[in-house]
């Protein structure tokens, strides 16, 4: 049954990336700009987005736009026009975290579909349903949940569930410029220095010498990312059986060539499962392409899928 296939969603940093990710097998791309969205692999203007929408819709793919920044007063003025522009461009949904976006969308772009993405704080089904009553049609569940919690959510959800299945995750976000502050403290020049995501900065904690935590600054502050890349391909069927609607592959800080391999691998699993759910079996070889291009210093892990956390 074609209709029940879960969606494969990938953030894209440009028109070219969007096109190549869709060609590789993505059902949807997530795009946007740093002013409104957070931790995007690159920036797409409204014109770019229009172009992507045209291409995507011609190829039966969807376009979502990230508007999930923590909104400041300054941004409120531009927000309605931006959302109106997105609705006109024909995007299929926006991601939001801040209620200010909900309010602005309600008045300026009531036709926009809304996906609730509060990053690490989307941790239970009841809160997702709460945002559902406010107009959200999907929840992007927190990456810190384990498999039991995710699977346990689905029957109770009145909105769709999106789960990140691959790539790094954000583990710390500050409005402070932490790298610039550190370098200034060291007496090093900061003005004009690139501290962005292409600089390749990372942190190492004294007792965890093998783990590299990427860190970068942009207009939204300082972002620290996980040292491992989630890869749940092996157990993707558990999520497919549970009825997860959308699988997200994170492309942030990865070359497009790597992301394309990842898309292909997950595509293979999704198709195989759709064709024959009963006879489905994961094949180790699906991982070959990913493993070949995987940064040897970043572990492919199950993230929090099989971890018990305490508090």
């Amino acid at each position, binding site marked *: 049954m074609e209709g029940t296939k879960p969606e494969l969603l990938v953030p894209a940093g440009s028109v070219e990336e969007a096109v190549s990710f869709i060609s590789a097998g993505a059902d949807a791309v997530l795009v946007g700009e740093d002013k409104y969205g957070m931790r995007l692999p690159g920036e797409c203007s409204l014109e770019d987005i229009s172009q992507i929408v045209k291409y995507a819709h011609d190829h039966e793919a969807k376009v979502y736009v990230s508007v999930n920044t923590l909104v400041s007063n300054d941004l409120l003025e531009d927000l309605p026009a931006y959302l109106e522009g997105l609705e006109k461009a024909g995007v299929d949904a926006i991601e939001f975290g801040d209620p200010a976006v909900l309010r602005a969308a309600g008045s300026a772009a009531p036709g926009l579909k809304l996906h609730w993405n509060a990053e690490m704080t989307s941790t*239970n089904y009841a809160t997702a349903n*709460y945002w559902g009553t406010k107009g959200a049609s999907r929840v992007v569940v927190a990456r*810190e949940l384990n498999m039991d919690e995710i699977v346990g959510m689905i029957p109770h959800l009145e909105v769709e569930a999106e789960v990140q299945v691959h790539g790094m995750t954000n583990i710390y976000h500050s409005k*402070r410029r932490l790298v610039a502050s550190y370098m200034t403290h*060291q007496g090093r020049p900061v003005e004009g220095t690139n501290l962005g995501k292409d600089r390749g900065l990372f942190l190492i*904690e004294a007792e965890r010498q093998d783990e590299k935590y990427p860190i970068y600054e942009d207009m939204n502050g300082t972002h620290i990312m996980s040292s491992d890349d989630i890869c749940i391909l092996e157990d993707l069927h558990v999520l497919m059986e549970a009825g997860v609607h959308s699988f997200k592959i994170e492309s942030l800080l990865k070359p497009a060539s790597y992301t394309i391999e990842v898309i292909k691998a997950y595509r293979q699993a999704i198709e195989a499962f759709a064709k024959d759910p009963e006879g489905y079996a994961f094949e180790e070889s699906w991982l070959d392409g990913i493993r070949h291009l995987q940064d040897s210093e970043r572990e492919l892990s199950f993230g929090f899928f099989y971890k018990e956390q305490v508090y």
Partner: protein
Amino acid sequence: METTMQHKPKYKGKRYRLDKPELLAPAGNLEKLKFAIHYGADAVYIGGQKYGLRSNADNFSFEEMREGVEFAKKYGAKVFVATNIYAHNEDLAGIEEYLRNLYEVGISAIIVADPVIVDTARRVVPNLEVHLSTQQSTVNWQAVKYWKEEGLPRVVLGRETSLEEIAEIKKHVDVEIEAFIHGAMCSSYSGRCVLSNHFTDRDSNRGGCCQSCRWKYDLFEDAREEPVWISEEEAREDRVLQQFKLGVTQLPQFAAEDNAFTMGSKDLCMISNIPDLIDVGVDSFKIEGRMKSIHYVATVVNAYRQAIDSYMADPEHFTVKPEWIQEINKAANRPLNTGFFYDTPDHEDHIYEPEEKAAPYDFAGLVMDYDAETGIATIQQRNHFKPGQEVEFFGPRGTFFKQTVGTLWDENGNEIDAARHPLQLVKFKTEQPVKYFDMMRKKK
């Protein structure tokens, strides 16, 4: 000659319900609650056995809450409960009953981050006030308006909000604004940090935070595919680049003698900026620290109480008293700053040097009784002290004096050489009258 100093408020905002801002203090347990209120807090916030973000604090049972509420009533003070976790599926089942119990024991408000708890509270205990927690990182007026329309009379703003932004929020929304004015701060947006989850499998948003932001890190840059050539000029300007060696795969972004990288922030302290906070219309001044000591809570509350009262009584002639700052410094665990209120924190607002954690003073004794005729005080021992040591007595509203401990007696009048036993009652002559609940501290 008359010198009138015209007071020109820089910020103008209206408080929502209160003439005077509320001073809101943390209370990690029943005893701390009593000290916080006795030393001048208008309200305290506490944690219950569930749904709070301080799983290591000795949180209140319902019985203790009831006692706390009774105590607070005598002072006209209020008790709030932090129910500010982000709930997981397994946490959902007991919420209704828990909230009913809170309402039943007389709690005035709950502080909530997760909308499911907001929604449940509004439905199940509509007369229990709900305040939006700082964990929601609310930093704009439209979001504030959203929560007001959801039935919340108060929003605790994200700590990233500046005074100007608060003024803007106040201009647009008639709602109580609570702001942290003192204490330790997350350097991340609150709730937007899972360092603990990643480093130690402890869930930060359910109270398991292990403060990984205060650990030390080394900053590196990934080796580039192309060789990097450092020009003479670059090498002159950048003391770290000078050390660059070709062929390494990770370029250290620190010189051997440099401090390590950290996200650890200095602590917030607005004692010198009370007029701005009052003028901008902040309704509730919140002190952080449910895990802090009695001495800390009493000292900090005492100083802010005086500053607020002094400004409210006579804004035109208000000056920041040096003793308020001195007092705060006696309890401070870290260097202090003004957070985001005036500007985004920069290199001077983080703690790169090794931290000197301990506050310089210890709580040595609590005054239980005072005999005005003999001038002898009965003191409950809270830390070792002995004759010959210099101690300070202080009480609510800034009463303060220093003296040397003279002859020391036990409860039965036997002379002793030191107060060694925890909670032991001892007596000695004080140089000025003291009152029940006055505190005695000594230098470490």
